[in-house]
């Protein structure tokens, strides 16, 4: 009797990969903030009010209900700045993922499918790119190009396209040996159609997992660049820049550094959890479980 109940429990927990509500909610909030930030924020992100400087969050002693998450050393509302920073993070992540994913997947597919000379060229290019550390590359670009969103996206794309290219190449190497690819050729299907109909849908899972993982790491990477002053420049708001500003006051105002830190961590974690769930759901074989 007890055994039967235990088995039933095991089946339900394993059988249904439950929708990750918390992760999805966190990401929805981040995306809504990015899209509608200026209408949601209680204050302007750059509104300076020295009288309200260093107000702690509302639940702390001395907090004010007008500044829910407190203010910084210039009296700017932290909540409004977090909302404005979400826009920067999401826009950069979206461009970086689309560009690096598109470029990486296209080159990876070509290398894996055709092999030979195209494969050698692309694989060597990947090796060269992976041997270049991303931070010195960012320093180089920062000294040559005007800093800002465009430069951050360029550095991220150059760093991350190799992820996609390498993994997609490997997937396509095994896919092209599958009989349905040979049969498509036998049926007279042209090479571009083989890429679109047979290769792309079969690497989409991998791409999705990589993209969600990358969403998290792009946010961390962008925050890192901005923290070092190489990325988003003031007066534009970014979570990394907020961390950097708050660092000077870490002993007197913990919220300046903790709140952007939580924003970075929560969105990174949420995108990873959601990505795992999406992968399980989109796989038609596992969907039946």
């Amino acid at each position, binding site marked *: 009797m007890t055994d039967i109940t235990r088995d039933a429990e095991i089946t339900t927990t394993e059988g249904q990969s439950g929708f990750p509500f918390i992760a999805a909610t966190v990401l929805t909030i981040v995306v809504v903030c990015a899209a509608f930030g200026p209408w949601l924020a209680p204050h302007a992100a750059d509104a300076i009010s020295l009288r309200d400087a260093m107000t702690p969050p509302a639940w702390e002693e001395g907090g004010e209900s007008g500044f829910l998450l407190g203010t910084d050393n210039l009296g700017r509302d932290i909540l409004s700045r977090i909302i404005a920073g979400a826009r920067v993070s999401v826009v950069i992540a979206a461009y970086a993922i689309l560009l690096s994913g598109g470029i990486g997947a296209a080159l990876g597919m070509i290398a894996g499918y055709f092999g030979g000379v195209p494969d050698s060229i692309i694989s060597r290019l990947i090796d060269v790119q992976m041997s270049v550390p991303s931070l010195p590359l960012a320093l180089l670009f920062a000294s040559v190009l005007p800093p800002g969103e465009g430069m951050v996206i360029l550095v991220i794309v150059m760093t991350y396209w190799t992820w996609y290219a390498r993994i997609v190449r490997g997937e396509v190497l095994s896919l092209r040996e599958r009989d349905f690819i*040979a049969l498509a050729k*036998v*049926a*007279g299907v042209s090479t571009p159609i083989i890429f679109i109909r047979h290769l792309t*849908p079969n690497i989409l899972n991998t791409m999705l997992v990589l993209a969600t993982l990358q969403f998290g790491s792009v946010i961390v990477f962008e925050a890192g660049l901005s923290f070092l002053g190489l990325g988003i420049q003031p007066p534009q708001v970014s979570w990394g820049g907020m961390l950097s500003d708050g660092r000077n006051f870490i002993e007197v105002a913990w919220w300046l550094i903790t709140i952007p830190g939580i924003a970075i961590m929560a969105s990174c974690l949420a995108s990873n959890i959601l990505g795992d769930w999406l992968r399980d759901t989109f796989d*038609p074989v596992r969907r039946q479980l």
Partner: protein
Amino acid sequence: MALLDIEDATCHFDMPSRQVVKAVDGVSLSIDRGQTMALVGESGCGKSTLARLILRLEPLTGGAIRFDGEDVHHLQGHALKRFRAQVQAVFQDPYSSLNPRLRVGAIVGEPLKAHGVPRRELSARIDAALTMVGLPSQAAKLYPHEFSGGQRQRIAIARALILRPALIVLDEPISALDVSIRAQILNLLQDIQSELHLTYLVIAHDLALVEHMSDVVAVMYLGQIVEWGNSETLFSDPRHPYTQALLAAVPRPDPTFPRARGHVTGEIASALEMPSGCRFHPRCPDAIETCRSIAPLEHMVAPIHKAACHLVDSAS
């Protein structure tokens, strides 16, 4: 004129170690329209490579393959497209031959789309093909993983016949299936053949399975044809020691059936290090001195029956 004419076809692969794998080494065969030819041999003898050469999935390194008089490996543009509509294939593993991301309707209809059949005709023709292989037309809306191995092979057959090709290459079409459904699939293939006047090239490693299906049998060993002949004569009077051994290995459900002579031991030799002389001599129970040094030539041993063996006399 033969529908498919293979003339001294070779396919050599260069290995990184500078060795050469002679997967197919001087094969000549021809198949007439409406015939079923069986190609049998052990794993690794090159029969699948030969199938891939016929389908133009591997490059020829020598010789020629002609389909309906045209050199398959020199076709370009429209002529190649015409060839692709005429020759289709069914492979061994029905799990690998259907794209898991496409619905069955898209899989079966893909050859039609590739050859520019108008969209409005697609669903009727997909229905007809599914009906022909004994599947309901609702199957078109499902994904491959919702079907069993035998049903998947039916889907693969529906796809192969939807363009009404002249030749279908069947590469071990039933060996991945459960024993209980093999007969069903074999019967289905025979019904379709007589209905559509198809020509089959069946590749198998098991002689018993092709015995009642083929008109002509070719036996392959290490990249070469060792015996070729009319199915009846070859099965009743095998001449080459290798064919005799293959037939002796077929289990008979009759204890009084006389045990055939000819025991073959050991493994098929590596295609990297071909034995000298006759390639079969290290395993041949009847090998004589000549076999070690001189490769035997294929010669007529009876009407519609050739063998490549020093011990078999030519027909006068």
